[in-house]
């Protein structure tokens, strides 16, 4: 790998030889110091939405309640993402440490790992780790228990409030926000829902301190990030890289020499055409513009043999099936978008109809209840605008 693309191996690096040492260290520190460290570190959620982790923990810690929950969101369903499974397979102890630290900080006694049904084969080995974790909790005087809750094949359950409903035994449909889970989460109690990788990153902040953590990554994207690389690449796999890298460097490293476009952030992310590689960085920035793309780590490469129409059609089929159907903009919108591009392709509708469809995605962005419906616009507009001729001919 070239020097410019630094492999950091923070997330998937080896364990400390002494089990749960970081958790033990955190037990000795005041909660407000840990929260401050997290805020100072600039750590943002690694699931894709990018909320400041320290603030989330702070909000949940502030609400007085006997009952609180920590939830590890392992419902990794975004197309092109497979890093959470790798973390849970290789370094589950780091995830449990992160959950333990969070429980200590916010005052939770119960935690869940919401594991997608597709990863059911991980249950036995995870349960062994959880059993061992519980003995360490007891040793450290941490009153905290974790259990696995298995999903059953629903992408939308990765949305945090849908996930809460799913655990409560309801249909996994997103709730209105506010109230946010940090105030009224699982069973109406304060709850922190963090992505698998976020929990590991939070633990890393406790281990190396916010200053060291901030040294990784550029601008507003601090720390390292796992990237799931797939598609037309000779080097598909999972890579632990510095956050904030430029897409051009990324493609040089991972492309097959003929990369036409990269989908950053999965089906709900953005498609970047070749001409924009050099001006695009991957990561969060204070002001969100199209050239700084946040991502849960999904990077799918397409070479010039691929039809971007088929790519978009595949995404829309995905969204149409995975829409929970609760709100009209998303339920009907996804169907109409799919029908619409089909009609344009077949010549039943004129090419200008694409502009109406773009307007529809704008409406969905404003009116859909959750991130699923709101983010359909991302891939739709970035593909239709950049590859318009492929949509028509």
């Amino acid at each position, binding site marked *: 790998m070239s020097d410019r693309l630094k492999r950091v191996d923070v997330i998937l690096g080896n364990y400390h030889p002494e089990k749960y040492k970081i958790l033990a260290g955190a037990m000795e520190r005041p909660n407000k110091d840990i929260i401050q460290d997290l805020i100072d570190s600039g750590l943002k959620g690694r699931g894709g939405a990018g909320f400041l982790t320290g603030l989330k923990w702070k909000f949940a810690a502030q609400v007085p309640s006997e009952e609180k929950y920590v939830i590890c969101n392992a419902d*990794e*369903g*975004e*197309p*092109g*993402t*497979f890093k959470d*499974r790798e973390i849970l397979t290789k370094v589950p102890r780091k995830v449990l440490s992160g959950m333990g630290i969070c429980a200590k900080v916010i005052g939770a006694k119960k935690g869940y790992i919401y594991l*997608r*049904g*597709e*990863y*059911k*084969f991980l249950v036995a080995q995870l349960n062994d780790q959880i059993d061992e974790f519980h003995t360490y909790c007891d040793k450290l005087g941490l009153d905290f228990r974790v259990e696995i*809750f*298995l*999903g*059953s*094949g*629903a*992408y939308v359950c990765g949305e945090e409030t849908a996930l809460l409903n*799913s*655990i*409560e*035994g*309801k*249909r*996994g449909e997103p709730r209105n926000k506010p109230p946010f889970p940090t105030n009224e989460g699982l069973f109406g109690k304060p709850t922190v829902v963090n992505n698998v990788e976020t929990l590991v990153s939070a633990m890393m902040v406790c281990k190396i301190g916010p200053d060291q953590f901030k040294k990784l990554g550029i601008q507003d994207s601090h720390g390292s990030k796992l990237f*799931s*690389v*797939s*598609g*037309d690449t000779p080097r*598909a*796999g*999972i890579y632990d890289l510095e956050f904030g890298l430029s897409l051009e460097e990324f493609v040089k490293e991972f492309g097959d020499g003929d990369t036409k476009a990269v989908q950053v952030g999965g*089906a709900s992310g953005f498609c970047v055409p070749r001409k924009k590689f050099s001006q695009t960085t991957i990561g969060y920035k204070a002001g969100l513009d199209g050239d700084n793309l946040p991502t849960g780590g999904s990077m*799918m490469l*397409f070479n010039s043999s*691929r039809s971007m129409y*088929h*790519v978009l059609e*595949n*995404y829309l089929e*995905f969204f149409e*099936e*995975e829409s*929970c159907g609760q709100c009209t903009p998303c339920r009907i919108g996804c169907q109409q978008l799919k029908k619409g591009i089909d009609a344009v392709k077949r010549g039943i509708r004129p090419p200008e109809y694409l502009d109406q469809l773009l307007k529809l995605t704008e409406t969905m962005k404003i009116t859909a209840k959750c991130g699923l419906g709101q983010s359909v616009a991302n891939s739709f507009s970035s593909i239709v605008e950049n590859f318009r001729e492929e949509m028509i001919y």
Partner: protein
Amino acid sequence: MPHTKELVEKLVDTYGRSRESMLPILQDIQRTEHYVSDDAMVEIAKQLDISTADVYGKATFYSFIDTVPRGKYVIRVCKTIVCEMHNKSGIIETLENLLKIKIGETTLNRKFSLLYTNCLGWCHMGPAMLINDEVFTDLTPERVREIIAIYKNKN
């Protein structure tokens, strides 16, 4: 079906009578009976003291819970973009020929069902499929033939 009734009663004892037990109960019934029958849903509703419509709503929400009978081995082939790009259709064609069923169907002996599923999270090793809970990646038509031959010999 007395068997279903007993099964539901046993599961309710294991997981508890609260609403939160519903998904684990549905998952276990799915595993044992290869689908969740109307009888099972009525029984769950009775045991948990909620409406049958509520149970139906939950059961039909999840793509891994079936309300129509499926085979003992449910094959779910990933159809999301990267697997699609890596010859998913060749895998489907091979499976259809081997099992003599079309996608969405179940063999007459109720041994295999062939279904599509959305992203399984094995994009770097696609095409991928699940047979019940077991994952198979880097599929080729030859490999699919080998895998199915093994499963055909299983009980």
